């Protein structure tokens, strides 16, 4: 039967070397450790790379930003409050320029418009406005850095003297003519408002008196001899005035201060005074009011607070996460692996602990520990409930894998419990744990927001602040000044987004079942 295929010539057939036909590919790649394998799989997933990058950016922001701003967390100012974000790059655009589009009635508009007329520091941007006949409203852009305008301030003789010398040397006018007490507005809420330097009427509400061509009528204090009322003022005078002839022919000088029991009271432009105070008196490196992210309702600089708040939140979250992970994982592992009576008892203990109202624990801690150690209170609050979550998810994983075939196989091969737990079950559970742990940081900040919103904890004692405190602080002015909550919320969103992507990437990377599939 050997003549089967006579046509196939002998030379077509070669002798196949037995080893050629091998069902395995040759191991061309070098052996790779589990970690390298996981890392390579991690890099495969573009999303998690993006997440990692964002996290790095946020961490860098938290570390570097506080060094490149002129403010500290403890900085506060009672006049520059809810000032809008401003950046020098966008100064003359109408975006990010520290101004808000404003519509208001005549008195409010004139109140701001007159500021620019007197000092050149325009509260109404470039003094441009439009008037709507039908709604009788003026619309204009109000500069939140200049809208404070003038304030009354008490000075001792030395401070008054020092301010005058600064004015003459720097050529920047801070002190403006004083308004006598009797010509200030009578309405109780406006008497101390230094921006009313013109004639006003009305006892319950102030309205402005205009002359025939619609301008305000200044009512400065004046005296026939120069320097009689203002202890010999010898510095800059408005538009270089050196006495003028008033309507009944006398040569009169404006008074630039009012004598009081503690020295003098002056009418000063707060923007200029702020620069003088910080550069000459405090010399704390602040050169001008400049808040890239604006200020909160209590006058704190949002950029600095956000950065140091982020720093605090990161450190605190990592500490809480680590502690929860360690305690939770161990507790859950024992609980899940041994099952039976130990599981029931341990489950009951964690039930009791999780059912205890943390609110009471916090109130009690606060009462007994006094006001100072808010952070310890916060740490205990998160620790008490944090690890239980971790423990139950670990327990869940253990139940899931405990009766898997390979575990049974390992046990039949004589592996002791500890080895089974660490070598076999734990690596499988690591996926969910990592994802869970990755989300602890953002969710910790999230719950810390509601805790400070409800007033249970208050981190603003001392110069510690956190992202949660900032969001809570902005809540009451959400409709009128949304930017206060916007910046910390954007930070939180980026944080959650990045940690999620990163967490997903991690879970795929450490998922033992995926090992080696994508090679």
């Amino acid at each position, binding site marked *: 039967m050997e003549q089967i295929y006579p046509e196939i010539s002998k030379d077509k057939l070669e002798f196949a070397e037995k080893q050629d036909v091998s069902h395995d590919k040759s191991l061309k790649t070098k052996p790779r450790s589990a970690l390298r394998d996981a890392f390579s799989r991690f890099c495969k997933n573009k999303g998690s790379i993006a997440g990692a990058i964002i996290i790095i950016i946020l961490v860098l922001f938290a570390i570097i930003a506080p060094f490149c701003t002129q403010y500290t967390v403890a900085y506060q100012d009672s006049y520059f409050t809810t000032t809008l974000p401003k950046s020098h790059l966008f100064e003359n655009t109408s975006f990010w320029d520290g101004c808000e589009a404003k519509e208001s009635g005549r008195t409010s508009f004139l109140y701001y418009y007159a500021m620019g007329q007197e000092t050149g520091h325009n509260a109404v941007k470039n003094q441009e406005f439009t008037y709507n006949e039908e709604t009788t409203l003026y619309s204009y852009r109000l500069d939140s850095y200049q809208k404070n305008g003038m304030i009354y301030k008490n000075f001792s003789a030395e401070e008054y003297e020092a301010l005058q010398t600064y004015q003459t040397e720097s050529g920047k006018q801070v002190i403006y003519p004083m308004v006598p007490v009797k010509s200030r507005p009578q309405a109780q809420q406006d008497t101390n408002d230094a921006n009313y330097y013109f004639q006003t009427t009305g006892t319950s509400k102030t309205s402005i008196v205009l002359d025939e061509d619609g301008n305000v009528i200044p009512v400065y204090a004046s005296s026939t001899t120069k320097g009689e009322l203002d202890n010999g003022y010898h510095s800059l005078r408005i538009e270089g005035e050196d006495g003028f002839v008033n309507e009944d022919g006398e040569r009169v000088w404006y008074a630039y201060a009012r004598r009081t029991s503690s020295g003098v009271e002056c009418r000063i432009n707060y923007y200029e005074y702020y620069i003088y105070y910080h550069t000459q008196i405090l010399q704390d490196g602040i050169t001008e009011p400049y808040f890239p992210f604006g200020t909160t309702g209590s006058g704190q600089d949002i950029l600095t607070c956000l950065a140091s708040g982020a720093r605090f939140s990161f450190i605190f979250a990592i500490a809480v996460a680590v502690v929860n992970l360690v305690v939770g994982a161990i507790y859950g592992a024992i609980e899940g692996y041994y099952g039976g009576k130990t599981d029931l008892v341990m489950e009951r203990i964690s039930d009791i602990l999780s059912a205890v109202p943390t609110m009471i624990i916090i109130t009690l801690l606060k009462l007994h520990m006094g*006001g100072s150690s808010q952070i310890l209170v916060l740490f205990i609050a998160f620790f008490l409930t944090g690890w239980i979550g971790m423990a139950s998810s670990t327990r869940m994983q253990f139940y899931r894998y405990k009766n898997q075939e390979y575990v049974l196989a390992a046990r039949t091969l004589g592996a002791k419990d500890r080895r089974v737990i660490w070598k076999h079950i734990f690596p499988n559970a690591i996926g969910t744990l990592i994802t869970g742990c990755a989300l602890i940081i953002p969710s910790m900040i999230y719950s810390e927001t509601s805790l400070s919103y409800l007033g249970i904890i208050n981190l603003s004692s001392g110069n510690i602040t956190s992202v949660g405190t900032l969001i809570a602080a902005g809540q009451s002015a*959400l409709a009128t000044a949304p930017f206060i909550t916007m910046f910390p919320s954007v930070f939180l969103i980026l944080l959650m987004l990045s940690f999620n992507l990163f967490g997903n990437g991690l879970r795929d990377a450490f998922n033992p079942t995926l090992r080696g599939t994508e090679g």
Partner: protein
Amino acid sequence: MAKYWKRIAVFFGTAVLSASLVLGAACGGEGDNGGNTDDGGNPAVDGKTGFVVGDPEAVTYRTYTTVLPSNWNELTYEDNNDTQILNYLVSSFFEYDYEFDEAKGGKYKADGSINADAIVPGGFSVKYSAATKLEDVTSSVDAKWGYTDEQKAAGGYAWKITLREDLKWDDGTPIDASDFVYTMQEQLNPKFLNMRANTYYNNTPIKNARAYLYQQGPIYNDLVTFEGEDPVHVDAEPTVKEDGTLSIQYNGEAVDLYASFTTGISVFFGESMATYYRAGYSAYFRKPYTGDTSDPDALPDYVVEVPGQEEGDPSTYYEDLYAKWAAQESERGYVAVTSELLDDLKVIAQSFGDPNPTAWQELVFYFAGLSDSFDWDNVGMYSPSKYEIVVCLESPIMCLKEGDSLSYLAAYNFASLPLVKKDLYESCKQEPQTGSTLWTTNYNSSLATTASWGPYKLTQFQSGKSYTLEKNTNWYGYALDDNKGQYNIDAVYCEVIADVNTQWMSFLGGYIDDIGLDVAHKDDYRNSKYTSFAPGTGTFGIQLFSGLDTLKSNGHNAGVLAIQDFRKAISLYLDRDEYNQTCFTSHRSCYGIMGPSYYYDVENGGVYRDTKQAKETLLSVYGFSKNADGKWTDGTNVYTDYEEAYEAMNGMNRTLAKELLEQAYTELTSKADYYGYDASKKISITYGASADNENTRRSYDYFVRFFNDLTSGTSFEGKVELVFDASAGSGWADAFKDGEVEFAAGTGFSGGAFDPEGFLQCYVDPEAGLMYSENFWDTDAEDFTFTMPTEYGEFDGAGQELTMSVLNWYCCLNGVASTYQAGEYNITYTYNWGAGAIPEGARMELLAALEKLVLEKYYTVITTSEYSATLLGAKFTQFSEDYNIFMGFGGFRYMIVNYKDGAWQDFVGATNGGNLTDFYKAEN
């Protein structure tokens, strides 16, 4: 496939089932107590506009609140949040009204509308409302109320009110005088301990009201009274009664004698005998009588040899004595004096080395005659006939001016008495739960338990959500011609809106008609024509704890606070404008106890702060001094008169402050042990706060900077630190009073705008329980000399220079001297200079002197007075632009309606698609 889903469905089913189960129970459960089961009862909402669908012709005033009241029961309401419903459900005997100038045509125009331009600015009138007549019956009431002859002559103690005869509840049941008496009996019911009971023995003090409430046991008074320093003894011998106890003749009647070892006696300055002995005074008690015992006749017969007592031997003789008798004391702390006890008392008295044989009288009390259980007819309120009520007061109120016309006091102190609906009230009584003996009531706490005799009645109430009030057609007031053309609002709908942003969206959407102006919206609506600013009476400041012995013992090394110069330096160095700008956003600086809205002469609008005396008081408190020639000087400048000086005063005098600081330092270091000052340690002053939040922290930081500036360049530099402590929580006031915290900022009082003299109780009257300085300033022991002015008219005590205790001055100024005299204070003078008793100018001068005295103690540094702003929607307009002290801006009664409900919905819909943000910015 199907099998699988079924299981999930099953699960879902259970979830929904269990939810509905609870729900069902809830619905079923709440069916009965919801009250308004009929669907029509609660306002339906029109889908498109979100407005409550109602009769378009009706006028509904829609408002909001952050917290609904829990009960609007006149007897138990707690905070002013509870009064938002209560004010509509009650009427008053006398009511304020504007003063209309007859010359300008009186109150009504021809067409019946109100003649607004006839209003006398700042004027007011008091008119009868639920009552028709008020008579002063002090001289004609029964003698049992114990009014003395001169009280009867002065009058103002007992009043007879004649009610209208057409008073009805909202369901038509008639009301008469017996209902008022029943209500007062329930108000003071000892089993209920109703919260507002104290109004009727503190503010309008009815005879024996307090005794009835507390079913007070016997009152014991010191047998011995004091003429200045020296005690007045009773020159009579005690007689033994049949039960072995002793009694003595005391101004005309035999009184039982009692002793107490655990309650305070005036001879030991309020300490009890036991504590006095134990508090280190025992040295007296160990020494036997060192008089010449050798000569028998030199030895007074009462001297009893102290058994086993040698020189310096610390025997426990007295300790056992106290233990023996203290054990026999009654649960109120008193034991009847028997002859055996009398001998022991003599030994104790003798150990003082007081040779006077009747010295033991200083250790005894006499029983002042109140029986243990106290029945109702001892309480000073009864109804002689169906429509007449008689009220007998402990201290007078001058409700009538000459010629029997009503004075403002009638409508201020005596406007109304509480009234509850008898049958409904009885049904609302709740038994005490097990383990508790307190009866409670839920009268006036839900729709079903509410009755009204006021202009409006409750027609819908949902706990935690909303309530509706509608006109009470049975109210007598609508028929009064005084109310013609008023009360144009048919219904009030109020909803709980806790979130600030939702409140503003509701207001700018036209759903609610008023809103408070907060800081976030101040810039936009400050000058709007819909905004009105109202001055508040609140004045706030810093309390400085100055009790030396506590300061020495609480280990804060802050004895320096007891030095007045140190406290005065704090007050003079504080820049109040800067402090208010930093820590409060809408308040103003204030320097006196009374802010700008206090009236000393209410009849003709005399503002206390504008008087010469008030201004001069503040000048001297804040570092000014008056030269011989009448000019004022602050140490550097000289001002021509007090007006110019007052204008230049801003409460600051930093040069003087630094000098005072140095003087305080020398005083402190020279008597270091007296002040318990340890130079090696820092002076740590604790800053007390009610909570640890942003505001308290900002104020604390401000004062840390303040102390650094204050002490820089002085010998205190670097030695003073301020420590934050908010652990006391809402109990911070007691923490301050006990000296645990020494510095409490932003604290103060409000109210009493028409009675500044009464308002002083917060600073000088320990009985009122409000004094922060009660534990270290005994106003009853400190004397004050003042000459009452004569230029305002003749009155009892005018022109005399008197010296009496600060508390005595306060009591005379408010006409309560006689009531306080019954207590254990040494009230020597009992002038009655209360409101209406003497000319207002004279009272104002004494008031200014007392304010100066209080301020110059510098226990309290006043910093801030408040004002508030509200926006009223375009649907209504306030009756008058200017704030009248009695009628406000015209209030609810005179509110002018611009749009009815239907017209308002159309108007809002037409304005910018229902968004009134710009509309409300308009200014003219």
